[in-house]
């Protein structure tokens, strides 16, 4: 058995990119949270000092994750998932309310956010379910099964309220698609998104008109194939009902702050002093950077604390201001590189479990990366989710670390079987 152990080899490229991102993240947290009372790098009363502790503890966590036998993760995936769900449910009883959301368990000065860990647990559970010999993603019953696995944690997270974190579970559509889910689901998602955004931007009436005209054109072009007119009418009617309900929900169910967030991105209301303040200041900070940035700890918007939540969700604006276009692109490329490397490695997995899990990791990281930087650079509405490995916060860092290193372990043991 000693011989087989030598086959366990970790993907150092992933580990290197992880270290690079965490280090750069810390440097930016340091800059963003630096103030007059700080006493050197190792001032643990400061935000950056605390983050240093979280990073230090991550190392122990990594060793622990890598030390566990890789089969353990497959074997106990369901258990981990159930524990994770219980921890989310427990919040309704024991949770602590921090800045408007009951997402934390509090142990003295130390808080933990179970939703950050639930992503890894769900990925394990989904991988186990999909890789089951009897599961076929083309089967509607199995699709429902997978959907329930994903929907449960999301359902528990939404009312915290933390719709941003819940939204992440949509990312799992990618591993499912990879495993045989019909492409129509992806297209349906895309179509729904387009309908959603255009309804908000243009209004339900215009969208309904557009749907009817486009539907009519497609029907007319396909008329020789004798298309089923009922199907067309059904799709068009569904779309219009969807648009109307979006419009209704947006105007009657959403609170004003939610509406505002969308309106800013859609360019409907530009109010630099009000709700758009975060995004506006974040864009100014990034613009200040130019090609090469103002230099580490030299950002003026950063120093003046113009960007709220800069060390957490808006950390990328510090990168933009102080490291400039080149530094920002380095971070973007590291994320792109890491995610593609994970997909590449996932494809090489001999077990379906490893592959589904790897895809899930890639999809989750991608969603976070896409939504977060999209928000900070003012492309997307404000959705409060962290930038993986970068943003301040112990739970997020640990959650992503565990998520990533379980895959590193699985991948490392991949050769074990050969």
């Amino acid at each position, binding site marked *: 058995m000693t011989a087989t152990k030598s086959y366990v080899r970790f993907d150092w490229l992933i580990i290197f990119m992880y270290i690079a991102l965490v280090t750069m993240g810390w440097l930016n947290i340091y800059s963003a949270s630096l103030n007059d009372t700080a006493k050197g790098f190792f001032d643990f009363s400061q935000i950056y000092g605390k983050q240093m502790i979280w990073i230090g503890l991550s190392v122990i966590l990594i060793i622990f994750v890598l030390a566990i036998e890789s089969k353990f993760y497959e074997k106990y995936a369901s258990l981990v998932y159930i524990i994770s769900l219980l921890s989310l449910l427990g919040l309704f009883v024991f949770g602590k309310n921090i800045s408007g959301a009951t997402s934390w368990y509090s142990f003295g000065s130390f808080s933990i956010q179970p939703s950050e860990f639930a992503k890894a647990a769900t990925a394990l559970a989904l991988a186990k379910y999909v890789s089951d010999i009897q599961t076929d993603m083309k089967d509607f019953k199995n699709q429902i099964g997978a959907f329930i696995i994903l929907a449960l944690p999301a359902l528990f997270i939404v009312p915290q309220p933390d719709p941003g974190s819940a939204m992440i579970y949509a990312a799992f559509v990618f591993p499912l698609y990879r495993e*045989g889910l019909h492409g129509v689901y992806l297209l349906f998602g895309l179509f729904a998104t387009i309908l959603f955004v255009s309804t908000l931007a243009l209004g339900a009436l215009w969208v309904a008109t557009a749907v009817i005209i486009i539907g009519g054109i497609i029907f007319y072009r396909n008329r020789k194939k004798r298309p089923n007119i009922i199907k067309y009418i059904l799709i068009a009617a569904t779309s219009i009902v969807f648009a109307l309900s979006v419009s209704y929900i947006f105007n009657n169910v959403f609170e004003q702050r939610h509406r505002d967030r969308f309106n800013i991105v859609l360019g409907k209301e530009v109010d630099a002093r009000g709700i758009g303040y975060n995004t506006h200041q974040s864009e100014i900070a990034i*613009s200040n950077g130019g090609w090469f940035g103002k230099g580490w700890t030299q950002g003026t918007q950063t120093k003046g604390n113009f960007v709220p939540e800069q060390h957490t969700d808006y950390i990328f604006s510090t990168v933009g201001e102080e490291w400039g*276009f080149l530094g920002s692109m380095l971070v*973007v490329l590291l994320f*792109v590189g890491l995610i*593609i490397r994970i997909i590449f490695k996932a494809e090489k997995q001999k077990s379906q479990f490893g592959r589904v899990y790897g895809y899930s990791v*890639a*999809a989750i990281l991608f969603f976070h990366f896409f939504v977060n930087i999209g928000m900070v650079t003012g492309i997307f509405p404000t959705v409060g989710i962290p930038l993986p490995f970068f943003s301040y916060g112990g739970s997020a860092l640990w959650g992503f670390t565990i998520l990533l290193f379980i895959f590193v372990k699985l991948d490392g043991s991949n050769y074990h079987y050969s």
Partner: protein
Amino acid sequence: MRKIVLIALVLLSGLLFAVRLFYLQVYDASPDSLSQNSAIKVMYDYPQRGYMFDRNNKLLVSNQPSYDVMVIPRDVKPLDTLEFCGLLKITKEEFKEILHKARVYSPRLPSVVLPQLNKADYASLSEKMYKYEGFYIQRRSLREYQVDHSANVMGYIAEVNNATIEQNPYYQMGELIGTAGVEKEYEDVLRGVKGVKYVQKDRFNRSIGPYKDGVFDTLPERGNDIQLTIDATLQKYGQELMIHKRGGIVAIEPATGEILALITAPSYDPSLLVGRDRSKNFTKLWYDTIGKPLYDRVLMGEYPPGSPFKTLTALVALQENAINVDDVITCTGGYHFGRRVLKCHHRGPVAMVSGIANSCNTYFCTVYKKIMDTYPTPQEGIDAWRKDLLSFGLGDFLGYDLPSGKRGNIPTSKYYNKIHDFPVHNWSSLATISNAIGQGEVLLTPMQMANFTAAIANRGYYYTPHVIKNIIGPDTIPKKFTEKHYTTVEPKYFEPVIEGMYQVYERGTAASIKVPGIEVCGKTGTAENYTKIGGKRVQLTDHSIFVAFAPKDNPKIAIAVFVENGYWGSRWAGRIAGLMIEKYLKGEITRTDMEKYVLDGSLEAEYAKPYSGKPFTINH
């Protein structure tokens, strides 16, 4: 397909962010300058403006502190407008208007609410300023004039205008800049460099210390002091002599080109343009369209030079070999050409020296015709004549160090071709004969007259006239003021002309106004001039003109005096020139009767004539 969808999406989003970041950071980068950054407040520290001294180190202008109330519109919080206006002593409407203008200029940059408070106003206001957020008091230094003359030389400072701000980023709204005279010409020397402090602000606009520990901050640098070539005593004396007269005096030291006195009349007390009444006083001066106190007659006024120009006609004739010094011409009381005659007030045989001494029109018309006749065509004649005159600094800007001026006019052959519609119609040199005696198309500024007199005094060269004697500190003056300009007339031709100018005093047109004990060379001038009244060309009393230099050998002063409508040359201008020369060379006046005549004399009645609306007589 299933394997590449996510990869494609990841790559696409990477690309999307690259484009977005490029747009934000490189293409559409918000202004990076510190002054545009909302997180940085810029504060200025104004240096002392350089002083001005006269050639004998007498202080002409220094500084006094003044206080401006400033506003940054963005920072203004609701305030008790009524109380604040009471403190500022302005009405609510004025206040609103000022605030509106400031907001239009820039919500983020400071604008002036009320300029130039005195110390008392400052004291009462400063203790209440804390109540008015967005407003603050900026200390500045203003000019304090030690003399009541030389306003035209020193110029003034004023609030910088928007056009200058756009061209020169050094200046901010409400700052002061030299706008005329030496203040304008030597703005860069005098102003120094303002100090800048960058203060880091947090999102509540509170100062949280110097930006980057002050590495970009600069200390103000005091402006350099300037020593002028002006002799304050002479300048003051000249200004007194010109009271109730219009015109000007220019005195130059021929050996250096230094301007000893530069007087325009009427003028104003420079102190009028300092302090809170500045704009009221300026408006008053600006709208005095008859006296034109802001108009520098010696630099801007283009006049027919009259008889002093004959000295140049003589010099050109000698240089062009059109005549010999001893050639005698008989004057019959006028120069006859065609059916016309250009009258002369004397008769008899004249040669060059006596021609100058008696200002014989016949002689100089003859000589001028001879210059033209040495060339095959009148065009070539005019251009040769013009070339020689240009070498005396005529017909173009002289290049002195004051920001206003005129070219004057020395006509070209092209000019006459155009007038006479050449080649359809031919013209003869007689068409330009008035130029011989400084009438006709020839125009000079009094400054140019003084300069050609200096060139004659130097026997053939001049230095560009200037008012800068020394920039104290670097101890330099611009190099162009130390370069000799030679005339095209050779030095040997100057002596007979100078002898003629000497004889003007000995037995000629200025014999009655001799300066005791000084060998003065001069030339009187009496120039016809016209104005328009109700669209009709009306002749006014002649201008009284005089140019002179002294002493004859090794001259110390060259002077041109111009008195508008003063009648004949020696009546006003000649007397003034003599008094100035004596004052400068001896320091005191021997002919006090003459001094009293000039000081008491007034031409106001003469100047009122064209505005009286009644018929009037001239030249009496």
